[in-house]
Every structure is written in structure tokens, then in C-alpha cells.
């Protein structure tokens, strides 16, 4: 166990280091001069050039610059946003909440619904339900998330006018307390449905195939031959074995979910990190962009490691790989 843990943590540290190197090199490799990139304009004033040169040590050799860059990061300084002149860290922290709300809720919903549907389909393998579900899982897998979001807006917001088209709260009513919570939930429905729908096929397929696989194992056949009831076999032996793989997928899925959420935020004007990132891209706010990327890669790496370790605790077979 200790060996496995050490190995995974080492990989995690490497991921963070590689992200740092990529982040650092991108600024230096990108067309144009890093000063212009960091200043956000083509003709920065001499004073600005001097400050930036000093801050990032741009006149020193590249490896000194890299060490300097890491040192600044360790102090928690992600640099300053060009658009608002505020610390990048602060800007990001403000937007983390809405993104996490959307991402975590959708992951839990998709995990539960997808797994349940997958188990049902596997138990009724070859039935109409199974065939329809399989077809739907292909279809949703092929659907671009942003387009699905637009279609939901088109149907439920523009035509039926059931849900709001965009945003997180109704700016006209300025509600407080419980009313505000309800307002947020109301705005959450469409974006959440979109992000959940695109994840369901993933869990559906994993659950379905692992149930089918477990059901065809020899020990299950033995139970059947011995006359054990089908439901009892399932509840006692199949379910647990079949549910385990979803946990690993959960970790791998994370990066995919976060990028999906980022795009959906833009579709629904949801005030989270995805939207912040797009604003950073369109305004050429590179310090902000790099800060978001760094924070995302580090947190995704940490989450994946945690999931791996949890999985190794639940399923001892993993450790001996």
C-alpha cells in the first residue's frame, strides 16, 4: 500500500511540475515578446517594461527565470490580471463556487442515474429497454455539449419559456434568503441537465459492461446451478463488483467534466471559471489565462490521486498491479 501511494503521489508531483513547465514555456514560446504578452499590449510604457522585467526576471537566464517563477507561485502570487489589475488568485477564487456547484452536482447525478440505468439494462440484456438505452448512449456521446445546451435553451427557454435562458440569478428581482436559493436552483436546471446528460452515457456503459462481465463469471454460474435466486445473486455478489469500476472512472472523468462545464458556462452565461477563462482569452489576458490553467491542472491532478488512493483502499487488487 505504502509503495503504491508513493508511486501515485510521485506521479501527481510530476503532473504539477510538467504543468508548470508547460505554462512557463508557453509564455516564452508564444509568438511575440513575453513582455507584450504579460503587459497585454503591443507598446507598453518603459516603466511597465521595467517593472515586468524585474518582476519576472526577464533579463536573466531562462532557468533562473523558471526558478523565480516557481518561487513567486509558492508565495501564492499568480500575477495580476491585465483587464482588472486585480490579483489573478482573487479573481479565480470568486468564480470557483458556481463552477463547483455545477460540476459536482452533475457528477453525482450522472453517476447515480447512469449507473442505475446501466445495471437495469444489463439485467434485462437484449430487451427493448436495453436496445433503446444503448442507442441513446451512442447518440448523447456524439452530441456536442454546447449544442445540446443551445437546443435546451431553444426548447425550454425560448419556446416554452419554462426556464431562464442565462445567468445564475434574476438580476431584476434581487431576491434574498430562501427566494435567492430557489432563484439559483431555477437557473441551474438547464445547465445542470446539459452537463449531466453528456456524462450519463459514460457511467451507463461502464456499469452495463461490468455487470454483464461479472454475471458471466464462473462463480455466478455455480451459484445459479446451486439454485440460488437471481435477485440474491445480484444483490450479494454482482452489485459490489460491478460498482467498483465506476469509482475509477470518476477520477478519469473529472478533467472531461470540468472542460464540459467550462463550455456550458459560456452557453448559459453561468458566472464561473469557464466564462472567466473565455473572457481572459478574448481580452488576451495571459496572466489570468495561465493562472486558471495552472490551478485547474493542479486541482485535477490532486483529485485524481485522491480517487486512486481511495480506490486502492476499497479494492486491494489494484495495489499489486
Amino acid at each position, binding site marked *: 500500500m505504502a509503495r503504491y501511494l508513493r508511486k501515485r503521489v510521485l*506521479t*501527481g508531483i*510530476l*503532473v504539477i511540475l*510538467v*504543468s508548470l513547465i*508547460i505554462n512557463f514555456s*508557453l509564455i516564452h514560446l*508564444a*509568438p511575440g515578446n513575453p513582455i507584450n*504578452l504579460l503587459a497585454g499590449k503591443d507598446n507598453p510604457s518603459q516603466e511597465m517594461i521595467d517593472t515586468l522585467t524585474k518582476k519576472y526576471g526577464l533579463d536573466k537566464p531562462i532557468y533562473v527565470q523558471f526558478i523565480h517563477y516557481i518561487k513567486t507561485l509558492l508565495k501564492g502570487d499568480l500575477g495580476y490580471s491585465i483587464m482588472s489589475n486585480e490579483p489573478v488568485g482573487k479573481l479565480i477564487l470568486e468564480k470557483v463556487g458556481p463552477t463547483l456547484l455545477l460540476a459536482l452536482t452533475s457528477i453525482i447525478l450522472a453517476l447515480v442515474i447512469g449507473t442505475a440505468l446501466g445495471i437495469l439494462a444489463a439485467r434485462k440484456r*437484449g430487451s427493448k429497454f*436495453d*436496445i433503446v438505452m*444503448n442507442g441513446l448512449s*451512442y*447518440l448523447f*456521446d*456524439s*452530441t*456536442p*455539449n*454546447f*449544442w445540446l445546451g*443551445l*437546443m435546451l*435553451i*431553444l426548447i425550454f427557454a*425560448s419556446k416554452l419559456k419554462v426556464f431562464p435562458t442565462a445567468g445564475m440569478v434574476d438580476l431584476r428581482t434581487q431576491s434574498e434568503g430562501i427566494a435567492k436559493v430557489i432563484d439559483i436552483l431555477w437557473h441551474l436546471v438547464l445547465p445542470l441537465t446539459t452537463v449531466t446528460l453528456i456524462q450519463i452515457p459514460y457511467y451507463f456503459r461502464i456499469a452495463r*459492461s461490468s455487470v454483464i*462481465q461479472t454475471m*458471466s463469471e464462473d462463480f455466478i454460474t455455480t451459484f445459479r446451478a446451486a439454485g440460488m435466486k437471481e435477485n440474491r445473486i445480484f444483490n450479494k455478489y454482482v452489485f459490489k463488483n460491478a460498482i467498483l469500476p465506476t469509482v475509477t472512472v470518476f477520477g*478519469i472523468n473529472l*478533467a*472531461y467534466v*470540468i*472542460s464540459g462545464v*467550462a*463550455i456550458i458556462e*459560456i*452557453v448559459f452565461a453561468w458566472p464561473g471559471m469557464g466564462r472567466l*477563462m*473565455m473572457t481572459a*482569452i*478574448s481580452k488576451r489576458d*495571459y496572466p489570468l*489565462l*495561465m493562472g*486558471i*490553467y495552472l490551478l*485547474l*491542472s493542479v486541482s*485535477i*491532478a490532486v483529485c*485524481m490521486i485522491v480517487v486512486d488512493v481511495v480506490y486502492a483502499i476499497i479494492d486491494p487488487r489494484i495495489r499489486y498491479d
Partner: protein
Amino acid sequence: MNKSGNFKMKIKKIISSINNVKQLKAGIILLALIILLAIFAPLIATHDPFELNDDMVSPPSNNYILGTDGLGRDIFSGILYGARTSILIGVVAASISGIMGTLIGGISGFYGGKIDAVLSEVINVFLMMPTFFLILIIVALFGSSMFNVMVVIGITTWTGNARLMRAEALSLKQRTFVKSLETIGESKFKILLKHIIPNGIFPIIANTTMNVSDAILTESALSFLGLGDPNVMSWGQIVYNGKSYLTNGWWISTFSGIAIVLTVLAFYLIGDGMNNILSPKLNSNN
């Protein structure tokens, strides 16, 4: 039996195995249709897809089969030409990722030892990176030409292929024919290129077909975010253009999106069908 007879037998065998796997059959028919439409786009298109007509945001009619966008461009013609962009980007990006994955995974699995330890770690690290954001940043910094988009998608998505090829190489190098080749002094790299890769390539081909779908989706997402190549017609861009006309011009985003869904579906079905042929027990749906 003469050579052509043998060849005919092979073709027959391939066709019968395609017929047996429903997904594969459906996918191939769908893809063939889409490719035909893309090839004959200039003949089928009713308008120049870039031409700005006077009828702006005009609903589907006899003149404009699928309507026009906010600048009066014909959607139907745009979708036909967009097929070329999407398929080209998808296939080139997936091929880059396939070739990189095959080489890295093959070297890692076949050479083993320290090389494998290092390369496996590289694969693990890349698996944990949020690829889409990396693609987004690189395209935003380096420009969104079609070439950039293809290369960037290709070089960031090879990990899946590398893992598959590594597993194949690990098992193939235990086989007698590889061992005997080593004994008679064939160089390692030659064995890798001539025997290991050709014998283990099929899962990579299946996976690469699925990767075409992912690449098409990634490209359309980039275009939707306004980071597509402005010089070519792409489905993601049409969806993006239609976003502001959702209430009064639903057809702009709707039809271009359906085009993406169908094309991506075709590649998924084919890739999945190939996987079914590979391991019928695990994947059989019926």
C-alpha cells in the same frame, strides 16, 4: 488457389464480418453518405457558402433548403462545405495521435526496463492533464489556423493509443517468433517496426477511429468558442454564428449541430464495431 481468388475470399470475409456487426454496418453506411456529400459539395450546394445574400435569417424554404444565417449565407451549402473541414481535421488529428501513440507505446512496451519506466510515467502524466484546456490555450496563443488546430489536438491526445500499443507490445514480445528474430540478431528497432507494430495495430485503428469523433467534437467546441480558423467553413462556427439568433433563427444552430452529431456518431459506431470484432465476448450487445 490463385491470388485473385484468395483476394476475393478475403474481401468476402471482411464483408461478412461487417454485416455481422450492426454498429459497424450502420456506421460505414452513414460515413459513406457523409463523405459522398463532402466530395460532391460543389455540385450539390445550392449557393456559395461564403456569399452574403440579401435574405438574412431567412427560414428554410425552396431557395434556401435549411435557411440562411445572420449574414445571409446559405446554411445547407455551409454544412456541405463544413463536412470537408470537420472530416479533414478529425482524420488528420486522430492520425497524428495514432502514430505518436503507436511509436511511444510500442517502444515503451517492447524495449522495457528503464525506457518503459520513463515512458510509462510520461503517459501517466499526460493522462492526468486537462487536455481540452491545454488545446484551448495553445490555440489562443499560437493562432487558430486549421493546421495548428489539427496538430495541437493530435499531440495532446495520443495517450490512449500509447497505452493500447504498450499492452500489445508487452504480450507480443513474449511470442516465439519475436524471440527467434532476436536470437538470429535482427535489430530491435526493426523488429518493432516490422513485427510488433503491424501485429498489434488493430486495437489502435479501432481507437483512432473513435478519436476522429473526439477530434471533430474538440474542433467544433473550439470553433464554438470563437477559436476556429476564420478562413474555412466549419460546423462549430455555424453553431456559434447561430447562437445569437436562437430565438428568431433556430435553424442556423440546429441543422449544423445535427451534422456534427451524425458525423461523430458514424465514427463512433465504426470504432465500436471494430472493437466488437476484436473482443466479441466483452462488448457484444445482442
